[in-house]
C-alpha cells in the first residue's frame, strides 16, 4: 500500500528542540513501517508562514498534520479547511484552539510545568528573593499558559517574588539585552526564569558576561546540549525539559493512530503512543505526555550529546 504521509509542522525550522522532535518522529515512522514523515515549517515564527506551509500540505493531500502552533487562533480557519478535506489534524507542544484540531498533545501538564519552573528557582532560594521571567514572544501560547500556571502557585513559595516579565522574542540578541536590562533594573535579582530554550541560553550568557555567576541563577526550560556550558560555568544550577525526541515520537504515533482510524479523538479516549504508553484525553481533547525532567551537574554530560 502507499505510505501514510504525516506532516510534522514546527514553529520554525532550525530550532534544536524541533530538530530533536523530528528525530523522534522518524523513529516512530520506522517503527510503524508504512509512514513517511514530512518535517516542515516556516523559517521565522509567524502564523502567516505556517498557514502557507499548511496550504501546501493540504494541496499535497497528506494524511495527517501534527503542528506546534505559532498562534492559537490564527491557524484555525486553515486547519479547519484541512480537516474538511479529510486530513487528520493534531497539535502538540504549542496548541491550537479546539476548533482547529482534533486533539492536543501537551508535552507535560501545564500546571506541572508552571510549578516546575518556579520550584527550580525557589529551591536555590531558601531565604526567598527576587526572580524575573524572560519569556519568548508575547504571543507564544505555551509560555503564556505556563507563566499563568506559575503565578497560580506562587503562594507556595513565600518570600519569592516575581518582579518582572520581559520578552526576548526567541531572538538570542533581544533575549540577551532583556536579561541585561533585568539585572540592571533589579540589582538584587536572584534568578531569571526563562521557559524557552532560546531565552535561557541568552540569559545564561548575559549573566556570565555581567560577572554575576553565583549571584543570579538562570533556570527554566532548555535543551541539555545548549545548556551544558551554562551548567558548567555555574550560571545555571538546574533546568528542566521534557524529552523532545519522545514528544515528536508520541505526536507521530498519535497522528498515525487517528489517521488510520485505530483510535478516535474524543474526551476520555485512550490513544496508544508506542513505547511511551498511552495518552488519556481530558474534556478538551488534551492530554499530557510525561513529567518534565530536571537536568543539573549530575546528569548533564549524559544527555548533552543526545538532544
Amino acid at each position: 500500500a502507499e505510505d501514510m504521509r504525516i506532516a510534522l509542522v514546527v514553529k520554525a525550522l532550525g530550532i534544536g528542540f524541533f530538530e530533536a522532535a523530528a528525530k523522534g518522529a522518524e523513529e516512530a515512522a520506522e517503527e510503524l513501517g508504512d509512514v513517511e514523515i514530512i518535517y516542515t515549517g516556516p523559517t521565522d515564527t509567524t502564523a502567516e508562514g505556517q498557514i502557507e506551509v499548511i496550504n501546501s500540505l493540504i494541496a499535497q493531500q497528506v494524511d495527517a498534520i501534527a503542528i506546534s502552533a505559532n498562534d492559537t487562533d490564527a491557524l484555525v480557519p486553515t486547519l479547519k479547511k484541512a480537516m474538511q478535506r479529510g486530513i487528520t489534524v493534531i497539535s502538540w507542544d504549542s496548541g491550537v484552539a479546539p476548533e482547529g484540531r482534533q486533539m492536543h498533545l501537551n508535552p507535560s501538564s501545564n500546571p506541572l510545568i508552571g510549578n516546575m519552573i518556579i520550584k527550580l528557582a525557589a529551591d536555590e532560594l531558601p531565604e526567598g528573593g527576587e526572580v524575573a521571567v524572560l519569556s519568548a514572544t508575547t504571543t507564544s501560547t505555551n509560555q503564556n499558559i505556563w507563566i499563568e500556571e506559575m503565578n497560580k502557585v506562587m503562594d507556595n513559595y513565600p518570600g519569592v517574588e516575581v518582579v518582572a516579565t520581559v520578552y526576548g522574542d526567541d531572538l538570542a540578541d533581544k533575549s540577551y539585552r532583556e536579561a541585561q536590562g533585568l539585572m540592571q533594573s533589579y540589582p538584587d535579582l536572584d534568578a531569571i526564569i526563562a521557559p524557552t530554550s532560546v531565552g535561557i541560553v541568552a540569559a545564561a550568557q548575559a549573566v556570565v558576561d555581567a560577572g554575576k555567576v553565583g549571584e543570579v541563577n538562570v533556570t527554566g526550560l532548555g535543551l541539555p546540549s545548549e545548556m551544558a556550558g551554562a551548567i558548567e560555568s555555574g550560571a545555571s544550577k538546574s533546568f528542566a525539559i521534557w524529552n523532545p525526541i519522545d514528544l515528536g515520537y508520541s505526536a507521530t504515533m498519535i497522528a498515525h493512530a487517528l489517521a488510520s482510524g485505530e483510535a478516535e479523538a474524543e474526551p476520555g479516549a485512550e490513544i496508544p503512543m508506542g513505547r511511551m504508553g498511552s495518552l488519556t484525553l481530558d474534556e478538551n481533547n488534551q492530554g499530557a505526555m510525561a513529567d518534565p525532567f530536571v537536568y543539573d551537574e549530575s546528569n548533564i554530560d549524559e544527555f548533552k550529546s543526545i538532544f
Partner: protein
Amino acid sequence: MTTTTDASTGRHIPDRLRSPLEARLKSWESLLLLVAIAIFIANSLASPYFLNAWNLSDATFNFTEKAMIGFAMALLIISGEIDLSVASIIALASTAMGAAVQFGVGTPGLVLIGLGTGLICGAFNGVLVTRMGLPSIVVTIGSMSLFRGISYIVLGDQAYGGYPSSFAFFGQGYVWWVISFEFALFAVLAVIYGVLLHKTNFGRAVYAIGNNATGAMFSGIRVERVKFTLFLLTGLMSGLAAICLTSRLGSTRPSIGFGWELEIVTMVVLGGVSILGGSGTIPGVVIAAFVMGLVTFGLGLLNVPGIVMSIVIGALLIGVIALPRLWAKWRA
C-alpha cells in the same frame, strides 16, 4: 542683434518611430510573462498536485492580499515615493477592527473601521511627506514602527478574536466555484488600477511627477495633492488587505503581516516598476504577483523551506533585471 528667417513652415514630425505593438513585445512584461509560463510548466512537471483547481485556488491566497497593496504601491513608487509602513497599517487596522468587535460592532462597521484606519494612516504618512517635505522612505520606516507599536501597546500579548461569522466571507468566502472573494477582488482591483494608471489624466500626472516632480509642478500639476492621494490609496488598500487577512485568520495579533512590506516592494519591482520612479505598469505587477505566488506554491508542494523560496525570489529579482543588461553588454 537678432536675425529673422523667412517665415518657415514647420517640418512634419511623425507621431512615433516604433509601433506600440513592437514596443509591447519588447517590454519587460513579455519577458516576465515568459518566466511565469516557464514556472507554471516546471511546477506541473514537478508535482502531481499542482494542476488541481482547488489547489491553485488555495495558492492564490499567497499573493492576493499583498498584490492589492502592491497596486497602490506601484503608483506610489512610480511617483517617486515609497511606503514601507503598509504591513504595520495592516496590524493597526486589524487591531482597530478587533477592538471594535469587543464592542459588538457588526461586519459593515468593521469594514468601515478597517478602511478608515488605513485611510488615517495613509493621511498621516501623506501629510508628513507632502506638507512637511520629508523623504518618504524615512518617514515610513518611522511610521512602520509607530503603527505596529501602537498595536503592541493596545494588544500586548493578547489577541482579539470573536469576529462575526459573516466577517469570514472576505478571507474565506468564494464567489463562484473555486474563485475566492479575495481573488475576485484582486482581479477587479487590477483592472481599476490598470485603467487609473494607464488611461487617465491622473495616471499621466503620476508618471510626470515620478520623472521630474519640479517640472511637473511647473507644468501646473498639483504635485502634493497627487502624492497625498497616492498615500491615501496605499493606506486604503492596506486597510482592505487587513480586512481580508483578518477575516482569513479569524484573529488579530500585533505581529500580523510582519515583514510584508519588503515582499510587496519586491513584487512591485519584479513587476518592472522602477524603484527610482517614473516608469512601470500594472500588468507587470499582476504578472509579478503570479510569478511570486507560483514560485512559493510550487516549491511549497515540494516541501522546500520558505527561506529557500526566498532565495529563488531574491535571485529572480536581481536576475530578471540583470540578465537583459548582461545580454546587452555581451552583444555590445
